[in-house]
């Protein structure tokens, strides 16, 4: 299993920043690992903790939520809400025995195509080091 195993990474990206950054990374031909699957949402504040739990229980090895930098949210404060939710969810997941590195929150703006590619590479490497998600059925 370990030889063939490839990480399954879900990135939940806000439409205005991180998704634009992913787009830019493509236009600028920055490569990032094919294990990353991007899901677009209107705002990181739209990401309910249930989304992350669902991703994990259905076999995601890592989940990354991408939003606009603080102060830059298109809806003014959605990313602050995402941060508050994330802090609580992150501690909850740690208590439930999920490695804290599996779930991550990043601020990547629409002009940071390079940062998007680098964060994805780094996250992919982290997940490879952690191995498969223990919740996998």
């Amino acid at each position, binding site marked *: 299993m370990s030889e063939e195993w490839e990480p399954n990474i879900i990135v939940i990206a806000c439409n205005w920043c991180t998704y634009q950054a992913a787009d830019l990374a493509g236009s600028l031909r920055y490569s990032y690992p094919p294990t990353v699957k991007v899901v677009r949402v209107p705002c990181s504040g739209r990401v309910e903790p249930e989304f992350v*739990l669902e991703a994990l*229980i259905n076999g995601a090895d890592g989940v990354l939520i991408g939003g606009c930098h603080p102060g830059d949210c298109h809806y003014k404060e959605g990313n602050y809400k995402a941060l*508050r939710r994330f802090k*609580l969810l992150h501690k909850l997941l740690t208590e439930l025995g999920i490695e804290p590195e599996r779930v991550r929150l990043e601020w990547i703006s629409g002009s940071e195509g390079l940062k998007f590619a680098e964060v994805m590479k780094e996250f992919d490497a982290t997940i490879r080091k952690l191995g498969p998600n223990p919740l996998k059925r």
Partner: protein
Amino acid sequence: MALKFAFYLAAGCAGCEMALVDLADRLVDALGELEVVFWAPTVADIKYKDLEAMPDKSIDIALVDGAIRLSEQEHIVKVLRQKAKILVAFGACAAMGGIPGLANMHTKDEIFETVYFKTYSTDNPDGVVPQTKCVVDGKYELTLPEFWNEVKALHQVVDVDYFVGGCPPHHEHVAKIVEAIVSGNLPPKGSWITDGKSVCDVCPRNPANKGKTREIVKEVKRTIEGIPDEEKCLLQQGYLCFGPVTQGDCGASCPKVNIPCRGCGGPLPGVKDFGARAIASLASILDDSTVDQLMEKYPSLAKLFYRYSLPVATINKRR
């Protein structure tokens, strides 16, 4: 013809059965319509073998309170499912795992270690741990049920027709359920028996019910800190209350007596994971530093957010 009625207590405290008895004269009226064929181990002296001997589908309605922790409980609910036309998960433990479900944060070994060796009151010099079988005097074989590795809610073991929340269900709500059972006026199978309103909806403290707006909460308090104002919303005073995500069939009993809601009523319709939704709702009303304060003040978020629902959570035990 009287409805054949069964009630079984699994891993619970019999509080749900008290809730039924609390109907007092209304229960006496309903008993004319009900024939108790099984009520163990609390009320009626009927043995498991009597239940096993009943014809399939001969019981009209069976209530189960308590979670499933032991092999014995699993066996009896499977028998009940076979014998009963309608099976109801009655109360928080049967419907969601309840307080016993918090044990899913610990392994069986950890629990045995604490209970049989570590607690202050334990006196166990020979290091005796319960065994499922034991022979006494070389000829009497005694047995105990198996202690499973995790606690389950009723529907995780057998098909359940209806769910009822509450720890225990409020007697007014129980009265409605008994009426619904007696009159046969039940919702579609697989659903919760509930008004579908949140605790906040029926809470007299709710600022929205008084025409005021909610404000951002700047300080988190535990229930041991100070005495809450009797009129003001508990959340607005910083006491973490799960009223926004909990079914309010209790009529907001706890907030009415200055105790914040902990979610025993069960998740509102549409909520899949109680704890996750509680996080979402709290993150909307607390400010950034209050969230940090919350995490400092509460040693275990899992036991706070999943107080009554850990076994039915998306991640239902510690890995």
